[in-house]
C-alpha cells in the first residue's frame, strides 16, 4: 500500500529513493493556530473563560457571561515558521523550510437577542505555508541537487453560535461552523549525477474540503469565583476533492524517459473524492477569578484518534493517534487601562514515535509554546499586541522507503499578533 503523500525520486543506487511530501505539516498536530483576542495571550486556556466572541471557538456557552451587549473582536497575526531537518543529504547537508504569512486569525461579533446571546465568527484554526529553495553540489554520486517546495494548508471555520443561561450556575451553547480546508503542494526536484545523467521529478497535490464543525459547550460555576467549561466538537467533511499528479523524467543508458510516480505509464492527474476523518475534540477548562485584576485558567485538550482513508491500495489520508494537550494562561490588570497576559501550551504530535526499521513513517514532533500580550483599554474598546513563540524537536523520515534513515527535526514558530475589540 502506498500513500499519495510519498513521492518517488529514484535511481538505482541513489540515496533519495522516496521523498515524503509534507515533512512537517500541522496535520500532524491537533493544536495549531491559537485564535482569539484574550485567548491568544492566554495560550488558548480559554474554555472556562469564553466570555467574549472568542467563546464561539472555545466554548459557546461562555457567551452568556459577556459583559457587554454587543462586542466585536478582530485578530490578525504575522507568522514566521522555520523547520530544519538535520543531515538530510550525504549525512551532512541540512534542509530548511521557512514561511512568512499574514493570517486573519479571528473575527467575531456577538449580540444579546432576548434571553440569548448570538454571535458570528470566522477563524483560521490551522494554517501552514512552507517554502524550500535549496541547491546542493558535489556530494556522493551527485553533481547538483536542487529542491523547490511550495506548500499551503489552510483551514477556515465560519459560522454562527448561540448561548443560553439555564440558571446562575449553568449555561449551554452551540456553534455551527462551516469548514473549508484547502491544501496545495508543489515539489520540483532536479538531480544531475556525476555521470552527466539527469533525473527530474514534479509532484502536485491539491485537496479541497467542505464540511461542518458543530461545537457544543457547557459552562458551570461550581463555586465562588470558579468556572468550569467543557466543549465537544468534530469536523465532519461532507465533500472532498483531491487531485494528484506525479511525473518523473530521467536520462541515462537504458532507462531514459518519463513515467508516473515510478510506474511505467504516462503521467496523468488522479482524482480522489475520499474524505478525511477528523478526531473528536474535547476541551475541558477551569478558570479562577480571585479578583477583578487577576484571572488564572487551565485547559486540557483531548483529541481522539482518527482512522485512515484509503482508496484501493492508496492511503489518501493517514491514520492519526489520540493526543492530550494542555494550556495554562493568566491575565493581570495592573490598572483598569492596561492588562498583561501570558501562557504556555503544548501541541503534541498525533503520530507514533518513529522507529528504525519501519518505512513511510509520519514525522513525530512534540511542540511547546509560550504566549504573551499587552492590552490597552478605553471605555469602549481595546487594542492588543502580543507574541507567540513555539519550538519542538523530533524526528522525520523524509525518504519513506529508507527504513533506517530518519532525520532530527526542529520546528520554530514566532507570531506577532494585533487585535482590536469594540464594545457598544
Amino acid at each position: 500500500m502506498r500513500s499519495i503523500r510519498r513521492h518517488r525520486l529514484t535511481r538505482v543506487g541513489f540515496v533519495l529513493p522516496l521523498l515524503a511530501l509534507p515533512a512537517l505539516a500541522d496535520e500532524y498536530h491537533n493544536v495549531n493556530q491559537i485564535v482569539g483576542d484574550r485567548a491568544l495571550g492566554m495560550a488558548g486556556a480559554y474554555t472556562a473563560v469564553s466570555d467574549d466572541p472568542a467563546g464561539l471557538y472555545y466554548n459557546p456557552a461562555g457567551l452568556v457571561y459577556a459583559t457587554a451587549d454587543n462586542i466585536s473582536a478582530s485578530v490578525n497575526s504575522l507568522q514566521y515558521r522555520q523547520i530544519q531537518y538535520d543531515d538530510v543529504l550525504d549525512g551532512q547537508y541540512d534542509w530548511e523550510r521557512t514561511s512568512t504569512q499574514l493570517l486573519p486569525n479571528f473575527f467575531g461579533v456577538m449580540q444579546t437577542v432576548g434571553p440569548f446571546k448570538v454571535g458570528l465568527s470566522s477563524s483560521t484554526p490551522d494554517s501552514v505555508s512552507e517554502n524550500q529553495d535549496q541547491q546542493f553540489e558535489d556530494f556522493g554520486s551527485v553533481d547538483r541537487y536542487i529542491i523547490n517546495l511550495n506548500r499551503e494548508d489552510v483551514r477556515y471555520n465560519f459560522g454562527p453560535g448561540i448561548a443560553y443561561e439555564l440558571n446562575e450556575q449553568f449555561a449551554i451553547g452551540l456553534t455551527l461552523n462551516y469548514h473549508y480546508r484547502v491544501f496545495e503542494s508543489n515539489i520540483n526536484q532536479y538531480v544531475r549525477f556525476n555521470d552527466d545523467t539527469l533525473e527530474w521529478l514534479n509532484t502536485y497535490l491539491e485537496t479541497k474540503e467542505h464540511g461542518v464543525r458543530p461545537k457544543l459547550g457547557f459552562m458551570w460555576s461550581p463555586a465562588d469565583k470558579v468556572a468550569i467549561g467543557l466543549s465537544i466538537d468534530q469536523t465532519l467533511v461532507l465533500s472532498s476533492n483531491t487531485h494528484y499528479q506525479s511525473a518523473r523524467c530521467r536520462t541515462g543508458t537504458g532507462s531514459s524517459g518519463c513515467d508516473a510516480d515510478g510506474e511505467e505509464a504516462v503521467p496523468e492527474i488522479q482524482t480522489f473524492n475520499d474524505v478525511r476523518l477528523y478526531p473528536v475534540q474535547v476541551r475541558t477548562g477551569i478558570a479562577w477569578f480571585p479578583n477583578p485584576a487577576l484571572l488564572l485558567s487551565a485547559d486540557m485538550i483531548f483529541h481522539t484518534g482518527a482512522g485512515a482513508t484509503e482508496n484501493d491500495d492508496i492511503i489518501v489520508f493517514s491514520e492519526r493517534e489520540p493526543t492530550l494537550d494542555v494550556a495554562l494562561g493568566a491575565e493581570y490588570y495592573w490598572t483598569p487601562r492596561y492588562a498583561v497576559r501570558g501562557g504556555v501550551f503544548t501541541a503534541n504530535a498525533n503520530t507514533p514515535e518513529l522507529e528504525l526499521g519501519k518505512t513511510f513513517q509520519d514525522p513525530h514532533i512534540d511542540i511547546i509554546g509560550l504566549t504573551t500580550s499587552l492590552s490597552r483599554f478605553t471605555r469602549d474598546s481595546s487594542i492588543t499586541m502580543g507574541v507567540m513563540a513555539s519550538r519542538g524537536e523530533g524526528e522525520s523520515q523524509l525518504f519513506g522507503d529508507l527504513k533506517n534513515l530518519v532525520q532530527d527535526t526542529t520546528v520554530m514558530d514566532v507570531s506577532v499578533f494585533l487585535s482590536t475589540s469594540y464594545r457598544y
Partner: protein
Amino acid sequence: MDPRTCTLSPALCLSLALLLSACASAPPDDYRPRLSQQLEETLTPADIQAEVDFGRHVAASILGRMDGLDNDAVQRYVNLVGQTVARASRRPELDFYFYVLESDQVNAYAAPGGYVFITRPALALMRDESELAAVLAHEIAHVDQRHIVRALDIGATGSDAGLAQLMGGASETTRVVFDQAVDQALSILFEKGLERQDELEADAQGAILLASTGYDPGALRRYLDRVHESGTDQHAELSGTHPPFDVRLAALDRQLHDEGLTGLDYPRLAERFRDRTQP
C-alpha cells in the same frame, strides 16, 4: 446538607455538602467582570452634561404631570436636608435639586442628573428628619448609579455615550428618539420601576449615605416598615415600582447587621422635622 447528619458514606456526604454549598455561591456576573470595565464607568464632561440636560427634561415632564407643594418653608427644608445628604454623594459634579410634589401616592422619584422628587403623602408618613434623609438618600443613590440612564434603551444600549449622542443630535430622527427616551424614563419612574437589583442597591447605598451624613442609618428600614404596615392604598404605587417590602426589609436588615450599623445612636431629629413640616 449537613455532613454530620447525612446517612450516606462520609466522602459522598462531604462532596454533596460542598456541591450544595457551592451552588449557593456568588453568580458569575459578580466575579467575571474585569478591572478594565471600571473604565466604562468613566464619564466625560459631555456625558455628564447630557445626563443633566436629559434629567432636566424628565423633571420638567414630571412637573407637567404634578403640581409642587405650595409651601415654600417645607420645600426649603426638604431641599436643605437633601443637600446635606447629597454632599456625601459619589457624584460631586452634579447639582442636586429636591422638590415636594402634590400627589395621592406615597413615592419618591429621581430623574437623571440630580432632580429628586418626593410626594406629600410620603412626607406625611415620616416621623423624623432621618427618615426624610433616608428616602432622599435612596433617590440620590439612583442618580449616583445612573440607574435610569442605564435602563434606557438608546440605540440598543443604555450607555452614557448613547445619551450624549442623543442630546447632541439635531435631526428630526434624533428628536423623535429623544422624546421616546423621555417617555421611557417616565414610564420607568411611574409604571415599570427599575430593576429589582437597582432598587436594592439604592437601599444599600442610601444607608451608607445616611451614616456618612450623620443620620440614623436604620431610618429607611423604619420608614419602609411603617409604609408597609400602613396597609393603605397609598403605597400601592410604591409597591408597584419597587421590590416587595419583605425583600427590601430583609436586605436592609442583613446590610445593617453586616456593616455594623445597628444600635447606633445617630440623630433622628423628630422634633425639628415636626416643626418644619407641620405648620
